[in-house]
């Protein structure tokens, strides 16, 4: 396997322009002769499918949801970054580029990030034209807010529902193209394999979730926009049905998987309250502007928070990071919360929680001001926990939120399988080892509206593709493999439910490949995962049949893939003997406990090649050159 990043030559400011000129075009009359499959209808998939159809391609678009408006992009709250410099505060494309490379702890590809920053301004224009109701000032012009990792106000937002409004913009553009006949939309349809003919991606195998029918679809290129793999942890802020099946099965067909150990843990989520817990809910990071984080000084202190005197509280973020205090970055704050809970000082019934206390802020500015700033968040908290955060401190705990790793792609967003393109959270390219807030929406839409629609034309114009149909033997074989897997799962008739396995896998991953990792823990996980996988295939109970809506069967297939993927994630985490961004190896920290990168040995993207289930994957390295942003150490003391 060869990793050809196809980064254009020349100064970074000119790479994308130069590349756009050098790429081949498909003339308008010929575009209708090409068919492109787009899997996934979040921001990346929805925007790409609509745009490709506008250009004249035939698009087959697939979603396992009942409507292309439901993907988890919809849940993004805070906003989307763009280097518009509308606030006149010194922002620029170069500054957004710089902040993103540095925020990613120097593990992203500079050329991709620069292009992302360039395109950010077009995204806002496009979304406003579609009718996205971004917040505005009284003068009628667009408003901005600030986000972590930046010293300028460049985040555009639509109340706390920015992701929803951006997704509805893409969804409406997609529905327009469906009505026009350019896109054939397949809802309730899950992709279960990618089909290669002569080494090129030429189609997919799907299951109709309503009828169980397994179908194949042929095309000239395949685009995956199927999101991240955070649900490998079972509990995360991801939607329940988010999964890694599409990218994992593509990986098994030959697409390299890059940096799977780069996961983002968000520090302020509502803690787990019981074994039945099905998912975690994020509370906006902005709360840490006024809330103070603390735990009791004594371990096992079960007194109510109001009964613990000031002198017996440990405001550990203020103590450890006096200059950033409660606004320490996500990775630092998350790890510190874990440490105090590991020491037995966590609060709440489960002991996995810390207080986020607004009492001082309420005394200082009054309850009314706090209500104006955070009213909707306090209400959301109260609805879930039945506790009034104006009276008692919130309890929060970190939770898995986003995955920076994904399928390796070149500058054209193409994976190591020719013709298989990957966008959004499903690919690895732009966020390095840590994603900045309000950058996920930016990347999804940049990929879908403005990058892939150009680069796929270059692929199609050069590829010299023979026509294939779904009767081709490679399609027939792939279809049989998928059907066999379903039948095998249904035939096991064991004793444990799919969720029981998923929950156990999640615990292994959270304990040993979560916020802080070490070699012993990762090796332990690498021992336990194959055992659990073996038990799964022997003892899982999947009721019902293959010929109907069967949610247990859907989950079983996804968990089976997580049970394989988890091993790759731990392998990657074990091999990366450094700490960077979301990947913290306890062996590699500075004397005062900060992440210690090793640029001399690990300034590369680790792209893994599949070598069979249970076999050690093969590592390929894409060296990362930092020609524009000098390598520096992050410090928040």
């Amino acid at each position: 396997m060869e990793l050809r990043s196809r980064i254009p030559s020349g100064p970074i400011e000119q790479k994308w322009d130069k590349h756009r000129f050098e790429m081949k075009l498909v003339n308008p009359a010929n575009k209708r002769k090409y068919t492109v499959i787009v899997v996934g209808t979040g921001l990346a998939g929805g925007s790409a499918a609509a745009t490709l159809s506008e250009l004249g391609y035939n698009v087959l678009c697939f979603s396992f949801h009942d409507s292309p408006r439901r993907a988890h992009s919809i849940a993004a709250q805070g906003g989307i970054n763009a280097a518009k410099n509308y606030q006149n505060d010194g922002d620029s494309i170069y500054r957004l580029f710089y902040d993103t490379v540095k925020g990613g702890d120097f593990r992203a590809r500079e050329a991709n990030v620069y292009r992302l920053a360039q395109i950010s301004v077009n995204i806002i224009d496009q979304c406003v034209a579609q009718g996205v109701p971004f917040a505005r000032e009284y003068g009628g012009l667009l408003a901005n807010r600030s986000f972590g990792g930046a010293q300028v106000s460049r985040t555009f937002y639509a109340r706390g529902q920015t992701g929803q409004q951006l997704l509805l913009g893409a969804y409406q553009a997609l529905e327009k193209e469906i009505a026009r006949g350019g896109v054939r939309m397949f809802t309730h349809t899950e992709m279960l394999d990618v089909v290669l003919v002569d080494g090129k991606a030429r189609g997919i195998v799907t299951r109709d979730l309503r009828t169980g029918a397994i179908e194949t679809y042929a095309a000239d290129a395949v685009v995956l926009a199927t999101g991240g793999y955070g649900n490998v942890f079972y509990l995360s802020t991801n939607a329940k049905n988010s999964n890694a099946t599409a990218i994992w099965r593509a990986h098994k067909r030959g697409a390299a998987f890059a940096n799977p150990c780069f996961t983002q843990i968000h520090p302020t989520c509502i803690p787990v309250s019981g074994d039945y817990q099905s998912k975690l809910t994020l509370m906006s990071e902005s709360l840490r502007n006024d809330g103070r984080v603390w735990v009791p000084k004594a371990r096992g202190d079960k007194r109510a928070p109001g009964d613990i005197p000031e002198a017996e509280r440990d405001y550990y973020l203020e103590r450890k990071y006096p200059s950033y205090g409660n606004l320490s970055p996500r990775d630092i704050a998350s790890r510190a919360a874990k440490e105090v809970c590991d020491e037995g000082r966590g609060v709440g019934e489960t002991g996995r929680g810390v207080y986020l206390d607004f009492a001082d802020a309420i005394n200082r500015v009054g309850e009314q001001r706090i209500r104006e700033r955070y009213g909707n968040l306090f209400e959301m908290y109260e609805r879930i926990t039945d506790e009034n955060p104006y009276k008692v401190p919130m309890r929060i705990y970190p939770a898995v939120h986003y995955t920076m790793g994904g399928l390796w792609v070149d500058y054209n967003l193409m994976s190591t399988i020719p013709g298989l393109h990957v966008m959004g959270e499903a690919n690895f390219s732009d966020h390095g080892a840590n994603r900045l807030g309000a950058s996920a929406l930016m990347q999804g839409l940049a990929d879908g509206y403005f990058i892939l629609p150009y680069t796929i034309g270059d692929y199609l114009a050069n590829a010299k593709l023979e026509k294939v149909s779904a009767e081709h033997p490679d399609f027939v074989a792939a279809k049989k493999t998928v059907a066999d897997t379903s039948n095998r799962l249904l035939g096991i008739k064991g004793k444990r439910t799919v969720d029981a396995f998923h929950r156990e896998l999640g615990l292994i991953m959270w304990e040993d490949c979560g916020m802080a990792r070490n070699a012993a823990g990762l090796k332990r996980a690498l021992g336990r995962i194959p055992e659990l996988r073996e038990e799964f295939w022997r003892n899982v109970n999947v009721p019902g049949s293959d010929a109907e809506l069967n949610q247990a069967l859907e989950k079983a297939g996804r968990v089976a893939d997580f049970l394989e993927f988890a091993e790759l994630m731990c392998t990657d985490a074990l091999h990366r003997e450094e700490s960077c961004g979301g990947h913290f190896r306890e062996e590699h920290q500075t004397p005062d406990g900060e992440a210690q990168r090793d640029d001399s040995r690990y300034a590369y993207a680790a792209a893994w090649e599949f070598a069979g289930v249970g076999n050690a994957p093969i590592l390929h390295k894409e060296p990362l050159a930092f020609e524009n942003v000098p390598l520096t150490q992050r410090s928040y003391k």
Partner: protein
Amino acid sequence: MKFTLEVWRQKGPNAAGKLERYDAPDVSPDMSFLEMLDVVNERLNETGTEPIAFAHDCREGICGSCSLMINGIAHGPVRGAATCQVHMRSFADGETIRIEPWRARAFPVIKDLVVDREALDRIVQAGGFISAPTGSAPDANAIAIPKQDVDDAMDAAACIGCGACVAACPNASASLFTAAKVSHLGLLPQGQPERYRRVERMVDQMDLEGFGGCTLFGECQEACPKLISIDTIARMNRDYFKAAAMSRVESTAGGSG
């Protein structure tokens, strides 16, 4: 807490359905309604019974997947909340809870509590968009929009497309859903060129899909998890009448050049 559930079970679109009783013992008041169903399903699964199928995904009230009729109320007893945001503490210990799918001719049952809501997508296809092909947009600040207009547009745009308005309406009308989109886009300057074409086509499509008409019961705004107001329906009706009055035959001649 413990509950008795009466759940609509229906094998497939053409099968007959009926209410089945299940016990839900050992329920924590902190469980969400869907987590309570997860636990019931886990037990059914362990005893070899097929779990209850229900639609769900984000579990934070924004994706619009969850769609349960709980004791005859769309999304259950909590005002301004989707099913996934309802917790068991909202019910009395020992209560019998009846759980049914959305019921409307335009929403056929797929299985158990899962219905097909693609009719709503087809209403959007009919005109619920602004035609702005990628790349054609002017600068985002080229047109100033009064803050109040954007705020009103955002109130309507908050719709999550769950279909509770249809389920709650005695006429099974999709007027609130349609009116929310008509209002969102019609309040913005970008939405003006297609404003009247949009409302005519969307309302006509709503009728074609078999949704009923609006007779102003107002049940929809009570059931709406985003508390979208029926004022949007008044706006839609105004635009629709105006569109009918101004209706012009679209030119079939070719381009202007």
